[in-house]
């Protein structure tokens, strides 16, 4: 719970007040925290691409949105990221559980893991890769950066970092 709490605290410190998720077991603690947080909006959504659209609308309405998802969700969302969030320069934080990184028990997750950072790089999305607890302190500044550069940004949280978060 400590890691998840630290991530949410830092996102909130960075101004994020609207949260969506396509659930992942590594995000479960964060979802629990958000479901009990009266200060921010939270909902699950069925698909990441749809979530990008909802985040765009929330930004138009002056919220600062974050979508939490597995890295597989980036694959589901490329067109929405490019032709909506980037085209209209909308700041959105992607909080990504980085499935398929060392510690991952499911071999099939390795495929998207191998290309996740390449996709984000191709999309020119600023990345913050968190593999240890002390790196989580960078999340608030990094989130604010999304607003300054009017762009989506991606925070990648490694499997091994999240799996110990009991």
């Amino acid at each position: 719970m400590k890691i998840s709490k630290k991530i949410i605290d830092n996102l909130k410190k960075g101004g994020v007040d609207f949260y969506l998720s396509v659930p992942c077991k590594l995000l479960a603690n964060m979802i629990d925290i958000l479901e009990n947080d009266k200060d921010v909006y939270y909902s699950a959504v069925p698909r990441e691409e749809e979530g990008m659209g909802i985040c765009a609308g929330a930004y138009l309405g002056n919220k600062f949105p974050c979508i939490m998802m597995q890295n597989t969700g980036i694959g589901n969302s490329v067109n929405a990221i490019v032709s909506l969030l980037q085209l209209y320069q909308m700041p959105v934080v992607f909080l990504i559980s980085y499935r398929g990184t060392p510690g991952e028990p499911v071999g099939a997750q390795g495929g998207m893991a191998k290309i996740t950072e390449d996709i984000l790089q191709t999309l020119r999305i600023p990345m913050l890769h968190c593999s240890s607890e002390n790196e989580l302190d960078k999340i608030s500044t990094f989130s604010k950066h999304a607003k300054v550069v009017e762009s989506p940004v991606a925070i990648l949280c490694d499997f091994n970092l999240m799996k110990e978060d009991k």
Partner: protein
Amino acid sequence: MNRFDLLNKVQNILKDNLVICNIGLPSQELYKISDQPNFFYMLGSMGLSSSIGLGLALSQNKHVISIDGDGSVLMNMNTLATIGNRAPSNYTLLIIDNGSYGSTGDQRTFTDEKTSLKDVALGAGCKNVVECSGEETVNELNKAIDDKDNSYVIISKINSGNVKIDPIPLNPITIRDRFRKFIGKVKYL
């Protein structure tokens, strides 16, 4: 009645609300009929009009109308489940259902065969789902906006067909900023 006729009929209602308008001909036709700062024209991301409108309705109090098409809703059908479970009362989804992919040359969609978006929306949890003719759409839209306790999905069944039209000349950032300025969220313009 085709989409252009329908947009002409509802333009006075749209003027008083926040509008998210579907990519391609719907946006181009609406722009030609009446360009307003409170109209957000989609220049990409086919399928997401309903989702953008939902996020906007959840984030502020003004009434939001998402103008969508049957082809676009078929592309993002999970949106109906999210709307059924989460849409606030200041949200109306207007699906212009002409049974065809208008912007790409009027190829038939599945709503022109067996699929009923009304049945899908009801099954997905949307409570107030209205299927109506183009002529009835003005009344149904007004009812939806006047009801301060419920969100609505209106499926307006019309004929296919488009008018010859140019792309929207507006820059995306112009569309974004004048829209946000209209709802009072941009101070620097």
